[in-house]
């Protein structure tokens, strides 16, 4: 790996401080939320619809409740508050009432003394369905040719972008329709929660793996019909999220069961149930036409983007907006006509997943860039350099890109990374496409190279004020930080103490449990926590430092503005004073809370114009793949990448995001897909939903481009999503290069290559 990992005496900003939970996770002693127990607890379980679309004629729970050990059975009738929930639009029933709209929709829940008793109870619930023909074609939802499958209608959102002169045409025109399959977040730590009812039955405490404690609390409270302060959430150990823990899964069910039985309820999903228990990445069809000059300069983009939102809204509306506003890619373009639709169908609901709508758009625009390059006789690198966006350029929404936009540098630095050595005459058999299956020999392999470059918005968009709160207390030379930021593996628990050490010159930093006793931190998504919660921790620490300086200045008769932190000391910049921070703060307590808000954003108007995004990050990927063209099998040999990170606050953590994101993008490129036939999910298991293994993971060579963003509190941009976005089209392009095939769909299947 290119960036050097420097360990220093103090784990301050810019060093590769190690995760505090790393050892425990590697050794298996880390407590994930599924490891939490309580005395006297019961187990909860969910009954789910086997049909994608059906009317519920009747539900008979009488046999289930008779089973010894079963404490309660709940259905839609037992929901005391709001009957539905949802992140943007409250359209998803806690339990299906009258109708089920996707395979796996919750119909009832049970609490019993043992998981096996729960299983029997679920089997004993008699649900009579009138099975209906599912609507699974988003085009039918858009055209209105099928009756609404939900009272809110079949169109979740339509957004148009009209920009510049729409009559412009170019001498070079390339167009194609692209398709992206449904990817799953496939986090390894399955959904799990423990709900503990208050003794008076008036509230619930919950330990849960989630991305956003406060949003969960809001939705749980509404469905329970209780005030928010009666619901107290603590973050359990989270084993990955990737967007799949933004929506409510088992939170409301577990709370209801706890309140009904008066006993703690433990719920956890199996891998199979997890596939039905959370939203997925939207499958999409994207038609794009580029008009360009002969020299490759883009003149106009036309696009029609159709996202299958599945049965419920989740975050489809926001995903769609990301898709339409990113279809130009990191390239200048003055004219555009874009139509985007998010449609409701009887497929599984889709929502947030790493990349959030931009992944789909990027596969389309990057495939188009290669087509354009070919049409203009340019290399993939040259076409991208010529069109590369610069700081200050306007998007097709009219928004100026005020973030630092080192697109050209990302491309050039990626290009400068050495290609992997040519394959030897007798390569290690496991490293050939087909791997351990021993399908190929050297002569069957063709190597290909492909490119992908992307732009990704950071933080929430369209007027959303997704602020973050943090508290800092300095007491007797020890710093305690408090925030509700979900640690889902991204490393904020490593970063927050680094911030405090840098700002305050104190090395002992304690991070309090993340819970709802402090204000919201917003969601751990949208590549936003380093910026937002980082900004909040930084702000709170700075306020404490001001108080400390005031205190020292008063004692020493100095102007506090003269004071500075130098390593672990306070120094007088105009005098000789030097005193350690722990000494200076002895016997004192300073405590400050800070809310970080990003700058306000705007809604898009009916022509898709408006400054709807906060900031942007950029990245380039170059993929080298070996393809067995006759069998259609692929081995990704190397991914070279240069990523615009603003400032690498913890280079090792950044690399973790880069390598993990690349693996996830590789998964979408060549293997990860939820397969459906008429709304029925065919592969809800890790036997058939394939994730990359170590043998599929490529060598990653990464360069971090550090051009601090003046808007960002710490100069650092979010780094979580960009790694997984343009790597997918880069791999697809490399397969095209090796095979000459069109490759308009991901994941690329063997038959797409060889038949």
């Amino acid at each position: 790996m290119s960036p050097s990992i420097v360990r220093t005496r103090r784990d301050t900003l810019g060093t590769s401080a190690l995760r505090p939970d790393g050892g425990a996770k590697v050794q298996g002693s880390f407590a994930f939320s599924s490891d939490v127990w309580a005395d006297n607890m019961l187990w909860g379980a969910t009954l789910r619809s086997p049909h994608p679309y059906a009317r519920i004629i009747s539900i008979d729970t009488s046999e289930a409740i008779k089973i010894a050990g079963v404490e309660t059975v709940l259905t839609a009738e037992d929901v005391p508050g709001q009957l539905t929930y949802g992140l943007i639009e409250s359209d998803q029933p806690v339990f299906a009432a009258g109708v089920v709209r996707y395979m796996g929709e919750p119909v009832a829940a049970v609490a019993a003394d043992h998981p096996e008793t729960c299983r029997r109870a679920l089997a004993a619930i008699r649900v009579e369905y009138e099975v209906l023909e599912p609507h699974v074609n988003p085009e039918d939802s858009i055209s209105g040719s099928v009756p609404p499958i939900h009272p809110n209608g079949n169109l979740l959102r339509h957004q148009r972008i009209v920009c510049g002169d729409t009559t412009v045409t170019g001498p070079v025109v390339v167009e194609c329709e692209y398709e992206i399959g449904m990817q799953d977040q496939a986090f390894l730590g399955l959904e799990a929660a423990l709900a503990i009812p208050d003794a008076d039955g008036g509230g619930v405490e919950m330990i849960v793996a989630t991305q956003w404690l406060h949003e969960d609390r809001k939705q749980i409270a509404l469905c329970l019909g209780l005030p928010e302060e009666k619901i107290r959430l603590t973050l359990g150990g989270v084993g990955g999220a990737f967007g799949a823990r933004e929506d409510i899964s088992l939170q409301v069910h577990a709370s209801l069961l706890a309140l009904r039985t008066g006993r703690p309820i433990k719920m956890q999903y199996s891998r199979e149930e997890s596939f039905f228990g959370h939203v997925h990445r939207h499958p999409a069809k994207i038609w794009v036409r580029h008009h360009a000059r002969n020299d490759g300069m883009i003149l106009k983009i036309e696009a029609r983007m159709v996202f299958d939102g599945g049965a419920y809204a989740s975050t489809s509306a926001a995903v769609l907006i990301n898709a339409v506003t990113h279809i130009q890619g990191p390239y200048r373009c003055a004219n555009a006509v874009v139509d985007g639709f998010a449609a409701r169908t009887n497929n599984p609901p889709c929502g947030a997943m790493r990349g959030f709508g931009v992944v789909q758009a990027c596969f389309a625009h990057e495939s188009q860039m290669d087509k354009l390059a070919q049409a203009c006789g340019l290399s993939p690198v040259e076409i991208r350099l010529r069109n590369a966006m610069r700081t200050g350029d306007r998007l097709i929404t009219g928004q100026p890109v005020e973030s630092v936009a080192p697109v050209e540098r990302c491309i050039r630095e990626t290009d400068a990374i050495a290609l992997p050595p040519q394959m030897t005459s007798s390569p290690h058999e496991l490293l050939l496409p087909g791997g351990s299956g021993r399908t190929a020999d050297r002569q069957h392999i063709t190597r290909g190279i492909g490119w992908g470059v992307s732009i990704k918005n950071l933080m929430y968009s369209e007027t959303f004020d997704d602020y973050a709160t943090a508290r800092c207390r300095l007491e007797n030379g020890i710093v305690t930080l408090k925030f509700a930021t979900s640690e889902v593996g991204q490393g904020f628990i490593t970063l927050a103490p680094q911030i405090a050490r840098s700002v305050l010159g104190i090395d002992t930093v304690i991070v309090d449990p993340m819970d709802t006793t402090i204000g919201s931190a917003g969601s751990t998504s949208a590549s936003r926590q380093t910026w937002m919660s980082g900004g909040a921790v930084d702000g709170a620490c700075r306020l404490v430092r001001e108080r400390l300086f005031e205190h020292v200045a008063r004692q020493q008769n100095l102007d506090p503005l003269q004071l500075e932190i130098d390593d672990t000391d306070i120094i007088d910049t105009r005098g000789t004073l030097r005193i350690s921070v722990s000494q200076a703060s002895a016997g004192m307590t300073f405590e400050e809370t800070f809310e970080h808000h990003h700058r306000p954003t705007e809604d898009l108007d009916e022509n898709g114009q408006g400054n709807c995004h906060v900031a942007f990050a950029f990245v380039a990927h170059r993929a080298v793949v070996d393809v067995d063209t006759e069998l259609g099998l692929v081995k990704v040999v190397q991914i070279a990448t240069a990523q615009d990170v603003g400032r690498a606050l913890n280079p090792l953590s950044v690399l973790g995001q880069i390598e993990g994101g690349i693996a996830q993008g590789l998964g979408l490129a060549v293997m990860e897909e939820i397969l459906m036939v008429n709304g029925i999910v065919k592969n809800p298991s890790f036997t058939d939903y394939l994730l990359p293994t170590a043998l599929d993971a490529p060598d990653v060579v990464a360069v971090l481009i550090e051009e601090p963003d003046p808007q960002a509190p710490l100069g650092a941009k979010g780094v979580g999503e960009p790694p997984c976005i343009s790597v997918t089209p880069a791999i697809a392009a490399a397969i095209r290069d090796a095979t000459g095939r069109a490759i308009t769909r991901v994941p690329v299947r063997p038959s797409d290559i060889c038949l």
Partner: protein
Amino acid sequence: MSIHIPTSLDDAVALLHELPRVQLLAGGTDFMVEVNFNRHDVHDVVALRRVTELQQWQHDETSNTVTIGAGVPYAEMENGELARLFPALAEAARTVGSPQIRAAGTLGGNLGTCSPAGDGLPVLFALDAVVNLASHRGKRSLPIGEFMLGPKRSALAVDELVVSVSMKTTTGWQGYAKVGTRNAMVISVASASLVLDSESGTARIALGSVGPTIIRCTQAEQWLQTQYDISARKELDEAIATEFGLRVSQESRPIDDHRSTAQYRRHAVGVLAKRLLQRGCVQ
């Protein structure tokens, strides 16, 4: 529910006779998956790990026969003496799951499940293996082709267990190749095992995942023998290899499912057959 842990074959066989709804547990790598999905009602389980007779393998050099106990894990076939004797079996073993699965999974379990995707089975078929079975009624041996009846269906009686498989060592080349959509730990989409027996001048090829059970391509085998001298193993015409691949794929009977399509499977298994033959004739 009861769990029994016999330490001898006789005890195991007796338990199979006594317990009415008994299930055998070897490495558990198929069994526990079924249990977790509640596809099994678990009643009485006979765990085979401690039955010493099942954990061993012997090479009888006078008859050139190797007998591998049903409980020998794949890990033992990947390298070492067994791998030297049966390179195709070693290649198949190396493709099974992950190191953890190979440490636990067994040929007895592969036969017990009798999935058309079982990686051990095409090799056993191409090696003309004999499956040795035991029950309280006594012992019997079946050619593997008669043991495997259909998808997850075998000739195993409810009160019977697989003791071992026996096959003759061969001189000549043998190999196994398997297509899956990921580079490791993947269920086969199409697979083939080829044995070129230079002593008898015969070729044997068996296919996995392209039919209801493992398929032996007897017609392609016979055709090859008329076109190419397997004992001499001189240079092979590419046209013969290509034609062999085509003939093999014609004998496959694949279906469409969520893992692949019949069209791709038919194509892939032909490519594998061709490549295996070319590999075998290069050496």
